[in-house]
């Protein structure tokens, strides 16, 4: 089944269409959520939520942009919402549960090839800049796709990536990590 057929099926409310789309895009959605939220547990929840949203809202998808771009936009918006909520909870003085889970899952993260030093440094970068950087360097999306997914101008995407790299460099140098360690 092609992507277009799967989308059409999904639009008719057929879950087999969603199954095909899930098989095609699950890794990218999971990886983006993981790096944005910083925890595999949150990424798993985000994967579920995003595909449920896809099933609900796919009727609004008219094919103006690539499905992957539309999906990226949905994933990024979902992650930004979660980060915003976390910020509010932290401001109100609630315990930040995802961080605790993250510490528990630290060993697992290392096993999966994620450098804890870079993960920690990435947490200090503003959410939108981080999203731009991750989409560009990890998922190898073009500037145009990132701009479309995040609804930003091309110039804004480039400057966000530049700023994110500068911040990441500063954080890594502050930590005293050498490039060979990562």
């Amino acid at each position, binding site marked *: 089944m092609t992507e277009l057929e799967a989308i059409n099926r999904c639009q008719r409310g057929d*879950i087999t269409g*969603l*199954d095909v789309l*899930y098989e095609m895009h*699950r*890794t990218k959605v*999971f*990886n983006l959520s*993981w*790096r944005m939220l910083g925890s*595999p547990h949150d*990424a*798993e929840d985000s*994967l*579920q939520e995003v*595909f*449920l949203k896809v*099933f609900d809202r796919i009727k609004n998808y008219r094919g103006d942009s690539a499905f992957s771009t539309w999906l990226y936009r949905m994933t990024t918006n979902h992650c930004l919402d979660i980060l915003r909520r976390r910020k509010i909870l932290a401001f109100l003085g609630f315990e930040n549960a995802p961080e605790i889970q993250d510490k528990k899952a630290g060993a697992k993260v290392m096993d*999966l*090839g*994620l*450098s804890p030093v*870079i993960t920690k440094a990435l947490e200090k970068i503003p959410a939108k800049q981080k999203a731009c*950087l*991750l989409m560009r*360097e*990890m*998922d*190898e999306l073009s500037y145009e796709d990132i701009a479309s997914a995040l609804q930003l101008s091309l110039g804004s995407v480039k400057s966000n990536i530049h700023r994110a*790299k500068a911040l*990441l*460099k500063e954080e*890594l*140098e502050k930590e*005293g*990590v*050498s*490039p060979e360690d*990562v």
Partner: protein
Amino acid sequence: MRHAWKEQDINKALHKMGQASPAPEVFERAWFKIEEKVASRGNHFWTSIVWRPWGHPVRWVAAMACLAVAFTGFLYNRSIVDQQEMGSYVISVSNPTENITKDLGMVKVSKLLSEPSYAVANLFEDVHVDPAPEDQILL
């Protein structure tokens, strides 16, 4: 010791991180939950209807208009009820003959005249005879 990071080093490290992939059971678990949630929703009529007036400015206006109509209707109804009450009160005050029964055999008597008042009862209670003192011997 402070190590210098070049742009290529950062790109390489991020790209390496991008290769990482979770175990397949993570995806299976997530899909199982998605299927479960979709199945539990069902196809009920009431759950399929979603009214979100805040979705578009026109809907905001429509929602506000509905609220304004409902509020005006409430105020109008209340003023009509007030006017009716006031009208009946004015009639009863200004035209007491309306209250007299048309039946010739019966005369409507006010409650005030037909029942003994408490004031009258108290009047009689005040008149009492002092009992004879205990030490007084009556022959």
